[in-house]
């Protein structure tokens, strides 16, 4: 498959000091939905804005659809749609006026009516932008990106702050675009979004890709697809995890700040009875026990020792 987006050794330094992006490489295929997953401040927005041609990189190469920003800026703008992390569109224009305005910038835009319909904004087409709900505003922001009939769609945190229903609506819209052959690059710090929407992901931290692959591959790299979390009385607050590491089926152990111990396991039905036996043997009591499927959050914690969203 031809590459839709490619960047090599991308670097961005602000004011000669702050290194927001440090040598980033990405290869995104045509028709893919690719996610940049990482905590706030990881460099996701800087990266996507460089790819969008809104920010010059300090060094490195960017190629979009085989073209570069230096030589084909106008052509690239015609074939991509973007939604910034936060854009407050003019409050006193109506939804339709806003879409018509954005459509007017493109040589061959889609019909505003079709886009309104696709984004379920037809009912709101004569409402002022200032009167829209958060979900409607975000759909409008994506509508302004889709009206130009782009080949590549850039979405910077498209669902941040949205309720679950609005979030799902947006996912449907992104899937619809992808189904028509479009390529999507989105940033998110919601692991659920990354897992369910993206074909492939790059996990970004401190301006670098620390892991990349399909969500399933990334989770598989943990060694276990399941997580057993427990807390036990008398469990010393030392960092030693050796006693748990040797339980059957345990691939890795990780200790949370609040005293929980996380075991990444292959076969929970072997691990859990052995764990209970060991706790009884140690004369301590089980205070908490749960098992669940491993998620990208676990991958991130495993790689960085931190959570994606630390409030």
């Amino acid at each position, binding site marked *: 498959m031809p590459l839709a987006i490619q960047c090599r050794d991308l670097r961005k330094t602000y004011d000669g000091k702050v290194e927001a992006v440090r040598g980033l490489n990405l290869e995104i295929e045509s028709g893919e939905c690719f996610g940049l997953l990482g905590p706030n401040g990881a460099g996701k927005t800087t990266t996507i804005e460089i790819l969008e041609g809104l920010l010059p990189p300090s060094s490195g190469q960017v190629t979009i659809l085989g073209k570069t920003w230096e030589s084909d800026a106008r052509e690239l703008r015609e074939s991509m749609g*973007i939604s910034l992390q936060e854009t407050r569109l003019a409050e006193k224009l109506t939804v339709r006026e806003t879409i018509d305005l954005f459509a007017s910038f493109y040589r061959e835009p889609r*019909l505003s009516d079709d886009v309104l319909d696709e984004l379920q904004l037809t009912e709101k087409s004569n409402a002022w932008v200032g009167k829209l709900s958060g979900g409607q505003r975000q759909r409008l922001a994506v509508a302004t990106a889709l009206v130009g009939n782009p080949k590549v769609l850039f979405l910077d945190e498209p669902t941040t702050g949205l309720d679950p229903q609005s979030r799902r609506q947006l996912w449907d819209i992104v899937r619809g675009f992808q189904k028509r052959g479009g390529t999507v690059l989105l940033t998110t710090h919601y692991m659920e979004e990354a897992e369910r929407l993206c074909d492939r992901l790059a996990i970004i931290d401190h301006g670098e890709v620390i892991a990349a692959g399909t969500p399933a591959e990334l989770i598989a790299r943990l060694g276990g697809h399941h997580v057993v979390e427990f807390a036990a009385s008398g469990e010393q607050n030392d960092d030693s995890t050796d006693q748990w590491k040797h339980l059957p089926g345990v691939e890795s152990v990780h200790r949370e700040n609040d005293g929980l111990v996380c075991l990444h396991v292959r076969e929970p039905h072997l691990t859990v009875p052995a764990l209970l036996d060991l706790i009884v043997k140690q004369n301590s009591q089980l205070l908490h026990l749960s098992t669940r499927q491993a998620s990208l959050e676990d991958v991130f914690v495993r790689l960085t020792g931190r959570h994606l969203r630390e409030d």
Partner: protein
Amino acid sequence: MAVSEPPPKLKDSPGPKQLALLHNGRWSGFTHLLAARMTELWREPEVMFWVFVFPLLLALGLGIAFRDKPADVTPVAIVAGSDAESTLAMIERSPEHALIHAQIAERNAALKGFRLGKYDLVIEPDSASEFHYVYDPARPESVLSRREVDDALQSAAGRKNPLTTATTVSSEPGSRYIDFLIPGLIGMNVMNAAMWGIGFALVDMRQRKLLKRFVGTPMRRSDFLTALASSRILLMFVEVVLLLGFGVFFFHMRVMGSWLAILLVGTFGALAFSGIGLLSASRAQKIETASGLMNLIMMPMWIFSGVFFSYERFPAVLHPFIKALPLTALNDALRATVLEGASLASQSGRLLVMAVWGVLSFLLALRVFRWT
């Protein structure tokens, strides 16, 4: 590659080739930007007030304050004493009595009133035939008053004029203060509206990241900026017609030049100040920064450019600098076309001044403009 689960309730999306597409011409972006700008302004009640209502109120207030009074009566005080009554009688039987309002007052009260501007002159009769005037040579009305009172007393005492003179009263429209004022107000309003209108709009859009969003589309940047300037020209037409029409209906102004010439002069002004507004807001991230800068730029012009009074009052050395200011050029050209019916060709120097300001600041703004 992970297969994402099938979308639960998505409508049948058309394939890439089935999408209906429009074909936009070269100016579609520009016309939509201009239409959007005008729509936004129309929906902003404060803008309507500042652009249209406020200048009319200002013109009305100033027009009333400086309306032509029937005659300039000078208030004078006669210091109380034995000869005060006879002095008053002399003034009242003189031919100039209608122009002088004399009052007898205690000496201290008279001098205090003089200092406070209540009286233009104090008359101190030393005897029935000797008078002493207290006047201030720096106050024109005091100088005038001394002359009138002196004439009144001399002729009351029997002075005969060697010459016979006659006068014709003239207060024709065209030479009154309101005639001077209205073109100045139009000029000032064109400046204020263009600077604030463009400056605020730009900083606001920059803060909202709307500028950044726009440059993420194939929109031509020059289309955006010219649409913004064009919206000011359209508004300027309305402002000029309103203010000038107001002068014609309320103050019976006579518009000597053609309205087309006047609107063209206004267009040059609107372009000059759009350029300057663009430049002053080309980098600011906050409204405060931009408004401080714009006040700094406009302040000298409010004072020097002859809005409320003629710049002839400033020393002649300053005149070349004052005339190089865009508002001076606009005000002078407006007064020449409105009041004297001057042709556009005769105003080419002033139009050039405005064009140079507009073009230079527009080009400079394009270079330093911050879109993000």
